[in-house]
């Protein structure tokens, strides 16, 4: 091989850290000790997490664009809460959420073909497949077959069981608590609610789903540090194949936490900005790759949307906002975004969802750039999937009980602490002897 062309070098010096010397020590409550992953291998801990985390936090279940018309609905399976939800746009255009259970004999109300699969559609009413009890889009029970044969029944008392549902920037959140401890906006806090992004313009959606044998936090952790890509994914493109990256690693330019939420910003991928030798041939030809289409979408202007690049870094490439507990939004400099959802199924199994959103392509060239972007996401994600199943096995061996986390793994340390804190708090309030 001939002499390598130059790439911008990563170095710690280019990415200054807080005065304390590290992002981790800037937040003394995080500590610097090795971390236990008992919370990711214990079935008992998972049982607590169901109530302490997933039935208390606001959970994102989708976007308003999935509910285009009055009567549009989708179902959401929440195995972690052992329930299914119906999310529906009513005749009054209000978005509501209900438990997907008929009040008559407990049958699952809305499903097709397979009772455990999610569906979507448009309807005027929900009629139970079993005995035909029928509900309006606002949850009211409006029809009982042979009503006169029931005993003193008042239909007003038998509406669908509603779930707290609020919308922020088009993202539909639910809260399974009887009374949420905070409103959605209070829960999201100032760092997240500062975001004001033209989500409604990015309607071109690609949706991936995976069923993976690892704990949800073990899996999520791989998507909140940029320390592993040069190694685990190092073969996938010539930039990362460079010895330079292996030797010098990758430095996140900004970390920030706000309550249970966190963000990491990096210089991003310099899509198309490096010399051609650093891209795979298909990337050069289609002007796209891991960092999405190289050419900025029409939403990109000289000013970044409010809330992005919270560290105000000069060479900004992406923000990875981690919204507690299991939702992430990743904004890219070329004007598209990704969401991730990590839905626990068991202590060692999750459903992983990735959605990529772009502006609608105006021609085949733009459509192909999107296709290459999302195909590349799959190549990388599958490497993570395989590896994290292996990590789960390693942890479950219990050969080692604590694990050192470096400063690049700041966000992993934070999630680990927040989950433990929420579970401890719940234990104190609910299960003390």
């Amino acid at each position, binding site marked *: 091989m001939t002499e390598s062309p130059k790439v911008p070098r990563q170095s710690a010096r280019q990415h200054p850290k807080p005065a304390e010397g590290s992002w981790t020590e800037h937040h003394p409550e995080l500590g610097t000790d090795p971390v236990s992953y008992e919370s990711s291998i214990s079935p008992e801990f998972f049982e607590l997490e169901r109530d302490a985390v997933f039935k208390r936090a606001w959970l994102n279940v989708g976007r308003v664009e999935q509910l285009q018309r009055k009567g549009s609905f989708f179902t959401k399976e929440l195995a972690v809460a052992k329930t299914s939800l119906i999310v529906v746009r009513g005749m009054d255009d209000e978005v509501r959420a209900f438990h997907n259970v008929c009040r008559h004999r407990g049958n699952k109300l809305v499903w097709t073909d397979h009772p455990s699969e999610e569906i979507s559609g448009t309807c005027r009413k929900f009629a139970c497949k079993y005995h035909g009890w029928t509900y309006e889009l606002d949850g009211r029970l409006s029809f009982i077959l042979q009503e006169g044969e029931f005993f003193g029944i008042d239909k007003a008392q038998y509406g669908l069981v509603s779930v707290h549902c609020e919308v922020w920037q088009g993202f539909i959140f639910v809260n399974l608590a009887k009374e949420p401890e905070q409103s959605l906006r209070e829960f999201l806090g100032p760092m997240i609610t500062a975001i004001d992004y033209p989500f409604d313009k990015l309607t*071109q*959606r*690609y*949706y*991936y*789903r*995976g*069923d*993976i*044998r690892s704990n949800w936090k073990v899996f999520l952790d791989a998507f909140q540090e940029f320390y592993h890509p040069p190694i685990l994914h190092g*073969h*996938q*493109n010539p930039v990362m194949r460079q010895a330079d990256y292996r030797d010098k690693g990758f430095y996140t330019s900004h970390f920030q936490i706000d309550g249970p939420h966190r963000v990491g910003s990096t210089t991003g991928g310099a899509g198309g900005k490096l010399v051609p030798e650093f891209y*795979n*041939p*298909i990337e050069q*030809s*289609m002007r796209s790759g891991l960092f999405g289409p190289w050419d900025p979408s029409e939403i990109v202007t000289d000013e970044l949307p409010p809330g992005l690049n919270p560290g105000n870094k000069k060479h900004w490439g992406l923000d990875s906002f981690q919204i507690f507990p299991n939702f992430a939004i990743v904004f890219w400099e070329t004007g598209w975004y990704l969401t991730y959802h990590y839905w626990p199924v068991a202590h060692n199994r999750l459903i*992983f969802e*990735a959605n990529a959103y772009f502006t*609608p*392509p*105006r*021609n*085949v*060239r733009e*459509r*192909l750039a999107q*296709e*290459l972007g*999302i*195909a590349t996401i*799959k*190549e990388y*994600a*599958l*490497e993570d*999937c*395989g*590896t994290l*199943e*292996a990590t789960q096995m390693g942890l479950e061996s219990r050969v080692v009980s604590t694990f050192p986390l470096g400063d690049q793994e700041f966000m992993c340390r934070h999630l680990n602490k927040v989950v433990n804190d929420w579970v401890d708090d719940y234990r104190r309030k609910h299960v003390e002897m």
Partner: protein
Amino acid sequence: MAATLLPPEFSALEPFAREWCLASEPERYAKRLRSTMDEMQAFYDALFPRIQEAIAYLDKFPLHDLPADALRLLQLLYSLILVSFPVEIWRQPCIPDTGTASFELKLAPVP
């Protein structure tokens, strides 16, 4: 089915069209996994040099009003994207070290 699948300008690619004009990503990915490297290399070598020509041809039509033969050419390009990873990176059909993990595209825009 028509005797030819692709626009006449791209008749040299007809031998690949019957195999690789597939409507959905899961079909295309499954096809990649059951193909040999020789098959994929031949497909890649035939189509890769014509990417720009194909895009220029397809962009004569509105994206949402592609004639049937043009749509099949676009599907061929989608397949080329999936084949590029084994050919350019992995030297094998599947990604190394991915075990039995699944990650499927459940929803994608058409075309």
